[in-house]
């Protein structure tokens, strides 16, 4: 089943390689952590947040440019398939676009790009 990935209400689900969809969770800690007198660790856990890494299918230049433009925003609402809850969840994410490589030219002068790595980090 194809994972869901909707960024700012635009459905990218079909634009990603469904076998490259990975989700990890990173622990966010505040500044109140430390070491207790008995030697134990005092954890100041604020939240566990999702980090989604995908590879796109081949993208036309205009589509990739749109993604890059979104990556310039602080945070965008993303609806995604969340393995932890095994549901589709919406949260704010920051988007980082990886290395972009031209793949081929098509008739009409449209530029195509090869698979591009996109990292979405939950706010």
């Amino acid at each position, binding site marked *: 089943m194809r994972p869901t990935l909707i960024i*700012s209400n*635009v459905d990218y689900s079909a634009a990603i390689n469904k076998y490259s969809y990975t989700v990890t969770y990173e622990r966010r800690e505040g500044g109140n952590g430390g070491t207790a007198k008995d030697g134990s660790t005092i954890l*100041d856990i604020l*939240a566990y947040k999702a980090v989604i890494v995908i590879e796109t299918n081949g993208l036309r230049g205009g589509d990739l440019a749109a993604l890059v433009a979104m990556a310039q925003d602080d945070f965008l609402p993303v609806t995604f398939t969340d393995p932890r809850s095994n549901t589709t969840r919406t949260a704010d994410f920051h988007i980082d676009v990886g290395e972009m490589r031209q793949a081929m030219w098509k008739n009409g002068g*449209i530029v195509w790009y090869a698979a591009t790595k996109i990292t979405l980090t939950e706010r």
Partner: protein
Amino acid sequence: MTNRIDILTDQFDDSAIVSANAFLVQSMAGSELEFDTFDATLDLSAYFPVVLSPSDADALRGWTDETETDHTGILTVHPWVRLLVHDPAAYAYGAAVLAYHDDALLGKFYMQSCKRVSRFAWQIEAVSPIGLLDKQLHYGGVYGSGATFSSVAASIIGGAIPYTINPALVNQQVRGWLPVATRRENLHQLLFAMGACVQKDDNGDVYITYLSPLSQTPTATLPDRRIYTGGSVAYPDKATEIVLYEHAFLASALTAEETLFDGQMTAESVVSPSGTTRTGAVVLFDEPIVPSSLTATGANIAESGANFAVLTFSGTTAVTLTGKPYAHTIRRVTVGEAADEDNVLTFEDATLVNVLNSEAVINRLWSFYGNANTVTMDIVVEGERAGDGLAFSDPFDDPAEGYIAQLGVSLSGIAKGAATVVTGYEPTTGNKFNNCAIMVSAGTWTVPAGVTDVRVVLIGKGQDGNDGEDGEDGERGSSGGYGAGGAGGFGGAGGNGGKIRTIDLTVAPGDTLTVSWSGDNSRVAYGGITYSSSSGQRSANGFTDLVHGHTFGLPGADGVDGGQGNPGGRDVSFDGDTWTPGDKGQDGSWEE
């Protein structure tokens, strides 16, 4: 949800809290009345979807149409906008701010300031309820027989903040004077004198209570896993002597009347201490004046108290205000002995400290300033509040027990508190003496159940008054009738009051104290020792029994002048008795 801040009806959760810190304090020996503070930076914005018009609907379609030649204009649509969703203008001075951590109330505060620190973030600063009392005036008063802790507290707080009082304090007797000061300053005076403190109830409102001695109250144990590494133990310079002054204020007939104001006044619209708007002026006194003794010329006295008179008049007029001050007596009590390199602490302006409570006050001060140490350490706060008693191991693993005096809390996933804990302090509270038995003749007094300390005040016989002067002879009569009666003589000066001596005794219930007289002196015998008023001192203001409001050992009043003899004489009254002039003299004889 770990943290939550409520301001009025607005709620902010962790996603909107940029930072939040509270500083919680508990005055230990009552020598300060600080208030808690709270600051937070909040994001007042939220994201909202933009509703696209039908002509833009293509922007939402999927990626199945690969014949599309250019998506640039479509995919760069950003359909979410960030807008302010709270109105910071509503966060006015005094607005309630509630801070929660893990669904437990950390504190209830009141807004002091709110300022913008970035496009969508505002920083708020708030204080606990006591902070509000710092901006309001209390007109004080003299508190005598019948004044209780609850009645004086009600007068001071005046409905400015909600509060409750520990039932053990409610009916404690309060005696003394409070000047015109802020409500916080006068509440501090009350708490200091009675050994009370301000804590918070479960709603965050003020709860006036006292610190229970740790030796009598089970204390929570703080496990090592909630204490961060580091910290220190401080051993402050200990006081070598505490000097405390007892105060008594007496409405005495012997006090001379004083002119309190004499000059021109221009009427203004003023709000009186009772909250009434009047035209005239409010005169404040530096020392307490007996309200019933106040008289004014050129103005009416609309309201008065021990510290003020509200005069009503119009325009600019000459006003004279007179009254009799309360007789103010002080007694110096000490504990400890100052050495060469002494550290003497003196408390002389606590005007609610009196003979009833001075023992408890000075013992508390001595315990704090003479014995207490402080431990500073960071802890994981799980419901602890300033004033709580804690048992813990100090940073050097020595067992310790004390009260949290300060707690600087940083809210995050966990609440970290920079704690200052006072150890070695045993607070005392309330009045040391609550009852008074008066013996006016020889006999015995048996110590009642539950009594372990008594203060015996021996008062000797006052000196006799001086004789009055003889009256003048009457005028010689004539054939026209009797001569006028002679003028009465000047009254004699009153005698000095009896000697007064105070002895504190440690007793046991059922013990007997034997009271007797020897000459002009009263005596008490206890434990094989006889004490006498003969080594006491005379006082112009005598000794006031604050429980009943009686004063003993005062100097005698001067005698009144004698009346003129008859014919033409007038009655003379004194102390309920009336004397009439003598008959006219015997008819004289006359010879050619």
